[in-house]
């Protein structure tokens, strides 16, 4: 890489997924994040019951993300060759886990808003 600026990175991602798909994915990620912030602000509380379900979804999200990346790149666990590979693998897993947790929490909150506000 000659110079890795933010603009170059965007260009690279646009080329990987195609301009349309990349920005669609960015929009979906942004929409989910905004929806998450919306339910947090609306409810003014983090529901531990919903958070528990979100946490339970994390391992599945992690595994799905790793399998997706390996499927897309013709590779498998036998190709892990050094520490940086383990870090990348864990990074992909963490992204998948966090993404699925946020998604599951947001979907629950949107579908089942808290029935009544706690009284002061």
């Amino acid at each position: 890489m000659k110079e890795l600026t933010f603009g170059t990175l965007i260009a690279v991602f646009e080329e990987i997924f195609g301009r349309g798909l990349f920005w669609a994915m960015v929009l979906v990620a942004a929409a989910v994040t905004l929806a998450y912030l919306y339910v947090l602000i609306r409810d003014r509380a983090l529901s531990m019951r919903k958070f528990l379900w979100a946490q339970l979804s994390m391992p599945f999200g992690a595994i799905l993300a790793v399998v997706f990346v390996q499927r897309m790149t013709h590779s498998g666990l036998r190709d892990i060759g050094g520490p940086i590979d383990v870090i990348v693998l864990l990074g992909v897993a963490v992204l998948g886990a966090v993404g699925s947790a946020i998604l599951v929490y947001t979907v629950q909150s949107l579908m089942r808003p808290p029935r009544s506000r706690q009284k002061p």
Partner: protein
Amino acid sequence: MAGPVDFRPSRRGMLGFALAGAITGGLGTRAAQAQRIATKARIIIIGAGAGGTALANRLVQRLDGAQITLIDPRAQHYYQPGLSLVAAGLKPAGYVVSRTTDWLPSGVTLIAETATAIDPETRTVSTENGQTLGYDFLVVAPGLVLDHDAIEGFSLDLVGRDGIGALYAGPDYAAKTWQAASRFAESGGIGLFTRPATEMKCAGAPLKHTFLIEDIASRGGARGRYEMHYACPQPVLFSVPIVSEKVRMLFGQRGIASHYGHTLTAIDPGRKTARFETAIPDPATGTVVKSAAEMPYDYLHVIPPQRAPAVIRQSGLSWADKWTDQGWVECDMKTLRHLRYPQVFALGDVAGVPKGKTAASVKWQVPVIEDHLVAAIQGREGTQTYDGYTSCPLITRVGRAMLVEFDYHNNLVPSFPGVIAPLEELWISWLMKEVALKATYNAMLRGRA
């Protein structure tokens, strides 16, 4: 201990979090573009491949009013770094093909004809249909030609049949190469992999193909029933000594036999035999003994000798005392400017420099030529230099590669020192080749990377 069921963050905490995010997001914004320079200069670029296209896009961003003309008859643009993947069945032929015009900016003229003559004295270029164009600056970036006829008994019709592959010849031939190679990977036998004595595009590609086919065969039906031979004219496996040693060790581990000093001269497809001219040092005296040898094969990968296109060799732009059988353009190693005609630059495969016939080299060369060309228009001297940077994601298995980067001095110049080790077989290096490289290449074509 009973506690509250819900977690309630403070409003101030949330605001602080949002602010931190906004600041981080703003860190990467690019500096404003330099002002465009008004000029009436006539710039001709011969070749609309990786180099010509990337340079045209960058010049359009830098110059206002310049008359930029590209001359190239090829309607299709090939992403050549992808040919190794096509020839290993990992990508379809279409993966490497796009249209030349897809990448060109508006404001340039494409003449879809072959350049037939260059006269650097009168500063003109002629095309096949008789057009003659004058120039103030000329960039020669026509690529190179594959001299298949130099190998007796070989023709491109043979590719894909009778165990013959030739992945350099283009996307369709790369796909046919996979047809032949996959039969070898299923049924086994003798695999014979070659490279030419001349300078060549991406000297890593012959090694990649060898490694990939060995890996696929080791997992496929041929497991335990194949042998691998790598024959090269050079006394080493790679021009950079430290990389050559690493590859030698990997070949040892993978059971790939090396045959140094072997130049492929002829094939006999009927007998499935390849003939080599050999030049091997006598172990006792050290003098090189020339001879000939024949080797049998069930799968043969042919890479023919490579030369500058005829129009370059006939134009008087080539080196007179170096690579005389190949005709690469005489130019300064650091600036790529012609040594006798300062209005002429050589870009990409055709440049007569010791290393750098790869797309990665082109990416480093383009900004240097841009700098010197724009400086010349402004009547000053350019400052950027090219130090031979070449990069090769040297694939060693389906799923692993070594990200080898080096310069003119055979030094390793890793982009991510301490993070991605250059001589280690890594998954991340494979990911770069498989996923990020084409994206970076396309961004380069558009003048954005």
